[in-house]
């Protein structure tokens, strides 16, 4: 009986991780579709992401409820709860950012398209690297540190590249108006927040792994 209950909880946690991973992929596709002006696909990405976010919220609540109602891992559940919340933030941010593209419809000049794609990829690489690290916390905490360094690397790369893009926007594109420059700067910041959140998760995981290593 306990085994079936724990298997169910494990399935839920794995499902949640898959949800996070999928949301990041959809976000990446969504940004690309927006930049390449594939409107229909972009609208489809928006819908998918909204649905995924709602589903992931449900799964997260179910996991948290299970942890507390079944008194699972009394010493670790607080940390796990925080981890799930932070990972959920990644999905929320992905959705929020993609919707901002839809609502604010920023004008992205042709010469910045590739830069924005690269920035998105770098930022999402940091977020994607955090998922295997989070998974290994549950069954191989000693391996967390091996996986987490990628997150820090990509986060740093994102910061540097975002700065390069912003510099390009403000210094090398005189044709753009100041308001457009500001607008574009905000979108670089939006994309950066994903890697910043991934870094936060990585910090949390580092501490959690230290506490779990026997």
């Amino acid at each position, binding site marked *: 009986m306990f085994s079936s209950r724990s298997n169910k909880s*494990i399935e839920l946690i794995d499902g949640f991780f898959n949800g996070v991973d999928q949301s990041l992929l959809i976000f990446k596709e969504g940004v690309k579709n927006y930049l390449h002006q594939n409107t229909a696909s972009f609208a489809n990405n928006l819908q998918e992401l909204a649905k995924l976010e709602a589903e992931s919220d449900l799964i997260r609540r179910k996991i948290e409820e299970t942890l507390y109602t079944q008194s699972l891992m*009394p010493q670790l559940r607080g940390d796990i709860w925080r981890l799930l919340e932070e990972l959920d933030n990644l999905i929320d941010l992905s959705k929020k950012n993609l919707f901002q593209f839809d609502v604010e419809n920023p004008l992205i000049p042709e010469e910045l398209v590739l830069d924005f794609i690269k920035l998105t990829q770098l930022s999402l690489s940091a977020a994607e690297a955090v998922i295997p690290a989070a998974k290994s916390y549950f*069954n191989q905490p000693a391996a967390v*540190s091996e996986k987490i360094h990628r997150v820090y690397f990509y986060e740093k790369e994102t910061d540097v590249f975002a700065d390069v893009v912003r510099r390009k926007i403000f210094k090398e594109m005189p044709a753009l108006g100041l308001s457009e420059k500001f607008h574009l700067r905000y979108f670089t910041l939006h994309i950066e927040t994903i890697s910043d959140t991934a870094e936060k998760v990585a910090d949390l995981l580092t*501490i959690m792994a230290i506490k779990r290593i026997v």
Partner: protein
Amino acid sequence: MIFLFLASGLFLGWSLGANDAGNVFGTAVGTGMIKFRKAAIVAGLFVILGATLQGAGATRTLSQLGSVNVLGGAFTVALCAATVVAWMTYKNLPVSTSQAIVGAIIGWCFFTTSPVDYTTLVVIMTSWLTGPVLGAVFAALLYLLMRTYIRKSRVHVIKLDGRIRVGLLVAGAFGAYSLGANNIANVMGVFVNASNYTVQIGNLIIPSEQVLFFAGGLAIAAGILTYSKRVMLTLGKGVLELTPETALVVVLSQALVLFLFSSSALSAFVVRMGLPPIPLVPVSSTQVIVGSLIGIGMVKGVQEIRFKLLGSIFGGWLLTPFFAGGLTFISLYVISNVFEIPVMSRQQAVNAPQDLPVHFHFPAYPMVLWLFLALLVVALFAGGWYFRTAGQGVRSRYPLGQWDGNNGYRPLSGEFLGAEGIPGKAIIKPEPGLSDTNRNAVVKHALHLSDERRFLESMRDSLEQAQREPELQKKNERIQGMLTALHQKMNDSAEIRRFYMELETAIGPLPSKLTAAGSHLTVQEKKLALLLRLGLSSKDIAPLLGISHKSVDIARYRLRKKLDLRKEDNLIQYINTV
């Protein structure tokens, strides 16, 4: 009348149950892994079973020490032992029921001029050392096994939680059984020679010894059910803060040691193997737990064992028999002279020890041999541990934690921060303020330092390359690139943001009065106020705000104006006092 005399023994049993059940189920209950109700029922049942089925071995050794053969004497001995235990517990001194009862029996022997079996005394006293040493050995071995299992099996944390839960329940039941089997001697041992009756239920005739063990078991179980909850919760959450994995190891090693010292069958088996018999003596579960914690500490590489505190614990354990013996001597004088209750009989008790089937005349050498073997294993462990960690001089540079050969530096886990023995004191040096928040801060700081170092290293490499560059244009390009990187680094908004967030966490947000008074303050002025609250000078603040020293002074002037400060008012004092 007999029940009146037995009351002191039953009281001793009750207090033993109330206190020592925490050693068995404390962590499991305190951390919420097992509900108290379930733990108390299992512990109560298994204590009674252990006491009734396997309590004879250790009891015979105690009877051999000094044959208290009158109920009045047994009552006084048990009462004095219980009083000393209660008093020392009240005074927060480390105490063991085993030591108290031994001291009380010797006190009785001295008062009645009965002979003390010094061979048995040596055996018992040696066990006070062997118990913790064996506890350390078992705990170290079990911990290594557990660690290997967890690391190799890669079992999911939820499944591991389930297995540890079951393990804690089984180990707790085994521990309770062993506790009953071993410690019933402390509770009822002195009454065995003083009681001579049988209870008949149908055709079944139960000797007084079994009845006493059953009654003592019931008293211990009553102590567990009625008063151990508080102790368990205190041990689980405060004094003995162990992880469930380590708790399982500690409980198992304690159960094994207590079982070893109380199993006649195991002792007989060892003799059949051609080895010296295992002495059946009551040992203190608390002492064994202290030994187990030290064993785990040695495996984990905790170096700063507080030998001074350990010394005080051992000192306390040695003082207990003296206190108990002295009190018994005086009490027996009062009981026999004031109340005129006989405290000894010159006739041999019916349950004379020599009629008993189990061999109990332990010559000293087997005991010494066992002790020697245990010490040899410990020495091997210590040697192995030393050689494993030798050469890792880096450890001394990390005073807050330990160096793990595989995973690098990691801070100490909480389990040794408050260990067994004396409530509120630790056997392993505590790490002051090493809370989760502090640890988080330390790790973040370390990561930040490593980032900074990497950046500096990259700058150094670039400078060296620029120095070696023969072409002037390329040299200039390299220097330009470095300047850009430096500008980026200095304008890293994420880093500055993080700094202000940390600053606000550390010294708290600006007081509401200040923010209300200066609701028109700009972000820069609010930052300035925070930095002034930190006590920094204008010179220190300038690089943090990214402005010149002079601009900071101008900003301070504007801030004073916005806060409506008079000429004689001190800005920093105002910011710190509002």
